[in-house]
């Protein structure tokens, strides 16, 4: 056999393999089911998140406050934080002022942010800020967090106070020696004071439990077991922009009772940078304790996903958009209102869950049943 023939055979083999891989990938995408409707109780929705997920949680919470009853902000700054100082670009503000400002006085510009938020509410681009007044909010800043410092989270507290949320409705915890991380009570996670991937730390309490306890009255302790599987669903049907950086697949946990008979409330949990399923698998959506709380309290857990993108949009760490990267060509990008690309995608997912149950839900349940065997 001569060299040319070996090369030709190799080339054919590679082409066949590539075609097979392409087919498998396309087929895998096509097989991800649609998000089903479960007749959820949309008027008692809540949201929480860590870091960029916390900034995003603030945005979702304030923009769509008419369906919200509370929020959990772990190491996140105030709504519109990237608009704090006009002489800095949004990205510059997001990565300095909104994370670790040089001194306290040049942290987030809360008085201006409150004015801007009021203007947005007045123009109808976000819901009325009055909706926030009877809500419950949880805030957390680790003592060892050098990524988003306590100075910044203090301003999140100040923002919510300024828009009328009573002090008694807020729980702000600054007492834990935690690094920049979501907190669990799992020995297998990173030690409490460190800041390192996957940014889930063992600090001897379940933060998900504390968050949901703060938001919803009469909450029950977490269940021992889950009654159904975590479901992957096709997130791309909710995305209407090429530069949004959201993954093809996202995740939802629907307890058995919520699948068949009850109208359950929804909690949206937003991961931080470098924490999407594309980077850390099920660590956030499967191992932070939310699902067992959902099981015990008839909650539907929704886990939208963002993935890293090296260019257009520039989001190399897979963060949620709180400075406008999802509108890369717009000098005045919308990342904060009803019409912001990522916010409207998540809102569409929430409304889908709240639609009346249909055959789609039934067929999705059946197709998931054998495919997934997650915690």
């Amino acid at each position: 056999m001569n060299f040319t023939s070996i090369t030709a055979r190799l080339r054919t083999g590679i082409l066949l393999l590539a075609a097979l891989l392409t087919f498998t990938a396309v087929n895998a995408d096509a097989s991800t089911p649609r998000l089903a409707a479960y007749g959820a109780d949309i008027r008692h929705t809540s949201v929480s998140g860590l870091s960029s997920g916390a900034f995003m949680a603030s945005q979702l919470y304030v923009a769509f406050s008419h369906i919200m009853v509370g929020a959990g902000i772990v190491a996140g700054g105030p709504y519109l934080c990237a608009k704090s100082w006009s002489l800095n670009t949004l990205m510059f503000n997001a990565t300095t002022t909104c994370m670790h400002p040089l001194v306290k006085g040049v942290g987030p510009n809360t008085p201006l942010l409150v004015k801007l938020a009021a203007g947005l509410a007045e123009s109808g681009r976000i819901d009325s800020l009055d909706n926030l007044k009877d809500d419950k909010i949880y805030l957390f800043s680790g003592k060892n967090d050098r990524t988003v410092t306590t100075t910044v989270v203090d301003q999140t507290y100040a923002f919510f106070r300024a828009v009328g949320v009573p002090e008694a409705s807020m729980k702000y915890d600054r007492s834990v020696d935690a690094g920049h991380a979501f907190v669990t009570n799992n020995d297998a996670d990173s030690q409490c004071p460190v800041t390192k991937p996957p940014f889930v730390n063992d600090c001897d309490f379940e933060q998900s439990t504390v968050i949901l306890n703060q938001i919803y009255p009469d909450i029950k302790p977490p269940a021992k077991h889950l009654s159904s599987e975590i479901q992957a669903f096709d997130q791309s049907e909710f995305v209407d922009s090429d530069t949004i950086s959201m993954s093809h697949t996202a995740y939802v946990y629907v307890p058995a009772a919520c699948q068949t008979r009850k109208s359950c409330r929804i909690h949206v949990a937003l991961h931080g940078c470098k924490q999407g399923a594309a980077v850390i698998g099920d660590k956030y959506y499967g191992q932070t304790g939310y699902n067992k709380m959902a099981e015990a309290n008839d909650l539907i857990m929704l886990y939208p996903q963002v993935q890293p993108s090296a260019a257009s949009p520039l989001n190399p760490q897979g963060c949620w958009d709180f400075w406008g990267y999802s509108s890369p060509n717009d000098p005045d990008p919308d990342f904060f209102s009803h019409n912001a690309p990522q916010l409207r995608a998540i809102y569409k997912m929430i409304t889908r869950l709240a639609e009346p149950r249909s055959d789609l839900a039934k067929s999705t349940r059946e197709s998931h049943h054998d495919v997934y065997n997650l915690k």
Partner: protein
Amino acid sequence: MTSTTSNDSIDPNLADAIKHWSEYSAESARNALILFEAITPLKDALQVGDQVVEAMKQTNWRPVTTKLGDPAAFSDACKELAEIQMAALSKWYEGYLQYLKTTQQSSEQLGTALRGVGSPQQALAAYLEASLAIMKQYQADTSKQASSISEIQAAYKAWFQKTLQNFSWKS
């Protein structure tokens, strides 16, 4: 018949060291592209312009001229500026100390890397690994220093706007 390749004569440690350098180069190239992508001067200028106009709408300029003569208001602004200066100096000093520390550690690392090596290839591998570790440490220092410079720059601009904001009437 057995075939031989040139890899047979390469020490595994040296092959690893070359691989690590190659990965580092690829990662550096990726980071350079990301940095290049982040530089958008025209968009930034438009963005800042829009934001300044938006902030000016929130500012009443009339009292600014009178409050500039108010010693108390002026003193508060100066205090904040001094605080920023001190913090900036402290950051610079921190960065300088870190560079010194890295330099000292580098000479120690290079000195110890070649101890106990049994062949020229192992010596080269040890040298490459040590110099890569040093390079990465200098890069981490530089990155931290760049982040500090950004913080300082953002702080001065914020102070300027905050001072104007405090001198103006709330609209």
